[in-house]
């Protein structure tokens, strides 16, 4: 037999609507129709909360997203509490119990949130969060400043991957002074890492994405908006990072070549002119870079040993 509690809630006169004919087999009385109406309202609110954020994003109005997503969630919760759970029909102490729990949650939030939402404390720091937050307001882009304030926290001021945050994370941030790094460096990979973060490359999740931060205007660009600024700023930052590239290793001295006394001494061949800017094209870092041809060899030509030594030298300049 139903308890007294179970029966009482339906006796408070929730509306007077009549059950439509099509639903009479499903809904037995006006109270059930009332519940069904509540469900329809909840469904309508859900649709608004689903669509609202898309509209807010299209109109670049964050307030619409907040109101439709969270404001409507509160309204929906109120409907469920009032009409499905019948909280208001219970003795006062029941909802006072619930309200007390909510008050403690709010106290917890407002006592703890100021610390948790901060990006630094006495003995800790949220470098990734701080980096993202600071870069969202870049307008006067200066790659040196961006490097110092945003990148050096992990990569180090000298680009050695030894910034204060970098020493605490694994995998370690890229060491831009490493020849091994530059041997395989790629312009597109660097750009992707800067714009879309390490996750986009399947690498470190600690490398944040700066595409939004580098976009035009406060708060970054918006999806669907053509904004070339992130790409341009990324190029400037890459150029800044390239200053960490180590100088080429000293070329090994060519092996002494035994020259037969009876044969004429070969004419010395001038060193090939290696333009550093052009050499970087070997990394794919300067799109469109052109190779400057070395001066034509003397007609008499070097020996094979000299050619080998020279090839080794050029390889050292270009790829290390």
């Amino acid at each position: 037999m139903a308890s007294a509690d179970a029966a009482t809630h339906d006796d408070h006169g929730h509306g007077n609507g009549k059950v439509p004919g099509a639903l009479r087999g499903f809904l037995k009385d006006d109270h059930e129709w009332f519940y069904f109406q509540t469900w329809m309202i909840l469904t309508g609110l859900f649709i608004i909360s689903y669509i609202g954020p898309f509209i807010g994003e299209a109109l670049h109005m964050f307030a619409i997203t907040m109101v439709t997503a969270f404001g409507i969630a509160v309204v929906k919760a109120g409907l469920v509490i009032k009409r499905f759970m019948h909280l208001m029909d219970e003795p006062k102490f029941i909802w006072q119990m619930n309200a007390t729990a909510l008050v403690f949650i709010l106290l917890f939030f407002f006592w703890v949130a100021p610390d948790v939402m901060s990006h630094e404390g006495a003995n800790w720091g949220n470098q990734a969060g701080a980096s993202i937050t600071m870069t969202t307001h870049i307008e006067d882009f200066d790659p040196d400043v961006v490097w110092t304030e945003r990148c050096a926290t992990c990569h180090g001021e000298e680009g050695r991957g030894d910034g204060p945050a970098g020493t605490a994370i694994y995998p370690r941030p890229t060491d831009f002074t490493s020849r091994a790094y530059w041997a395989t460096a790629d312009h597109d990979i660097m750009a992707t890492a800067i714009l879309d973060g390490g996750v986009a490359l399947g690498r470190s999740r600690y490398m944040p994405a700066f595409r939004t931060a580098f976009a035009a205007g406060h708060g970054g660009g918006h999806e669907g908006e053509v904004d070339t600024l992130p790409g341009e700023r990324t190029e400037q930052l890459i150029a800044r990072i390239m200053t960490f590239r180590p100088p080429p290793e000293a070329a090994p001295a060519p092996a002494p070549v035994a020259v037969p006394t009876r044969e004429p001494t070969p004419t010395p061949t001038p060193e090939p002119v290696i333009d550093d800017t052009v050499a970087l094209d070997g990394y794919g870092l300067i799109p469109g870079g052109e190779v400057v041809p070395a001066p034509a060899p003397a007609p008499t030509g070097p020996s094979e040993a000299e050619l080998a030594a020279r090839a080794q030298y050029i390889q050292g300049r270009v790829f290390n």
Partner: protein
Amino acid sequence: MMGKPIATTRTVMGVSTGKLAVWWLIVSEIVIFGGLLASYVMHRIGHPEWAASAAHTDVRIGGLNTMVLLTSSLMAVLAHAAAGRGDGPLAAKRLAVTIGFAVMFLCVKAYEWTTEISHGYTITASGFWQFYYVAAGIHAAHIIAGAIIMGFVMMQARRNHELGRVELIGLYWHFVDLVWIFLFPLLYIAK
């Protein structure tokens, strides 16, 4: 009175002891889920970089599960209405439909998680995903527990026994729905 569960026969301060117990349970759940969600909100605000992770949750799947739970709540309250009229078999049928929606919710959730995990978004991927799996996981555990208990209540209701329990499990079920109403915008909409 022998053999009759005391929770449905004794009242305290005008409320059956069974219902009072459920309300106490809900109060404790408010602290559990409230603390979890409050922690998520403050961390989400403090970690704007989480937006990159949040962008990978599927709002369509979250929306589908929202509708599944809202509809299951309707069926639970309709079962309560039927129990209030003393119609145990109808209440049992409606509870069975509610359980069906619970199973549907879990299947959708299983598909969703499988997809996310296969794409590398595991619980260790980032702070966001840790909160995501813990919050949604605890909620799913409540769905499972509620569905099992509802099964027992349904079997009793079919025989017109202990119809008061239909309201008790309904209260719990509405609370689980309530939690999801807040989880949905937090995890799926706030990118």
